[in-house]
């Protein structure tokens, strides 16, 4: 009985329920487990990224790195790709001459990433009650 009252207080006064915490932790840990188990997918992603970037700049593939890291509340893909030189561009586009040596891209975060073959999760409206909460929409 007391547990029920406490749960009610928590829901009304805003402390996150332990089940929501658990759900969010699970979402991230499963994502990282799937990434660790899909080196071929990561390799394909790496090749595709180089191919796209190589259309605009010459890159040093040997010293490049694409990785996935836990950042704040999610997982981010980080790419560190040394740029050797710019490729010739179309005349009407003015591109700044850069002496940059490293291009850092923070892209896909965990919420929008590919589900690696799993069915996309349905988004539901958050219910007022403490029961059956899904992760809040971002």
């Amino acid at each position, binding site marked *: 009985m007391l547990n029920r009252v406490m749960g009610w207080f928590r829901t009304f006064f805003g402390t996150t329920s332990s089940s929501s915490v658990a759900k969010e932790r699970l979402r991230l840990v499963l994502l990282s487990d799937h990434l660790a188990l899909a080196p071929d997918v990561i390799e394909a992603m790496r090749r595709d990224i180089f191919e796209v970037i190589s259309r605009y700049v010459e890159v040093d593939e040997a010293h490049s790195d694409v990785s996935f890291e*836990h*950042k704040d509340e999610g997982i981010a893909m980080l790419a560190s790709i040394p740029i050797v030189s710019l490729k010739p561009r179309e005349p009407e586009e003015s591109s700044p001459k850069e002496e940059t040596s490293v291009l850092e891209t923070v892209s896909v975060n965990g919420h929008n990433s590919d589900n690696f073959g799993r069915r996309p999760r349905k988004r539901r409206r958050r219910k007022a009650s403490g029961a059956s909460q899904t992760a809040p929409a971002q």
Partner: protein
Amino acid sequence: METQRIVTPPVDAPQLEIHAPPAPVESQKKPKTRGRTIVVTSGKGGVGKTTTTANLGVALAARGARVVMIDADVGLRNLDLVLGLESRVRYHVLDVLEGRVSLADALVRDKRVPTLYLLAAAQDREKDDVATDAMVGLVEQLRDEFDYVLIDSPAGIEMGFKNAIAGADEAIVVCTPEVAAVRDVDRVVGLLGNRINAQLVVNRIRPALVRKGKMLSVEDVNAILRLPLLGVLGDAADVIVSTNRGEPVALDEASATGAAYRAIAARIAGEDVAAPQAAEPDGFMDKLGSFFGGRR
């Protein structure tokens, strides 16, 4: 929050020394005696090995000991999850054993209890990938730097279990008061042999059911296993909540289960603590205690 990689670096990363020790905390002196090596095992799955390893690690470290916990459940790791450290795991045991990273880089330090460290299992490998003598070598190396090396054994009696016990001098055998569990644990006790000193922790006792004759008592369990009794734990709901949050109950002053783990840690450390008692699960006193925030 610091970033932690979750995918191992490319194979041409510089080969690092395995032997660099973790940097000691200023206030901690290097232990003069070699650490104790304790495997937490059972045979039966789901009886509370990982929860026990996590909480004993926390409780021992909270007393000032330097503790390292090794997750030996390759492929199905969970010690990191129970501890709430899953987002900080960057490397694992096989990364160390196969020479890709140093031990120092692989150890995850628990920020809540600064003398507590975790060495995670690989998620994308199998238990057979670990060579037994490599595991023994790792444990031997760790006991020079830590007061306690706790090894969380997987379920079963195959390679994972054999690797987990290989480096240990002592065992904490966890059993629940169920016939199936007692039978499995009995088999495991036999497999531990004479080399390993084993003690028993009985988990998930519900005194009310024992009184009604609907559950084995601690005495019933130990009549078969015949081991020195290290501790008795109830079946409180707060363990589930704590795993949800990744906050081991041993950190919670108000938790009766946490108190039980702290008592077990004290006993392991050689203190003469009162005989193990089981807490009534979610009993009136438990609720009262947590409501007023005080210790039961």
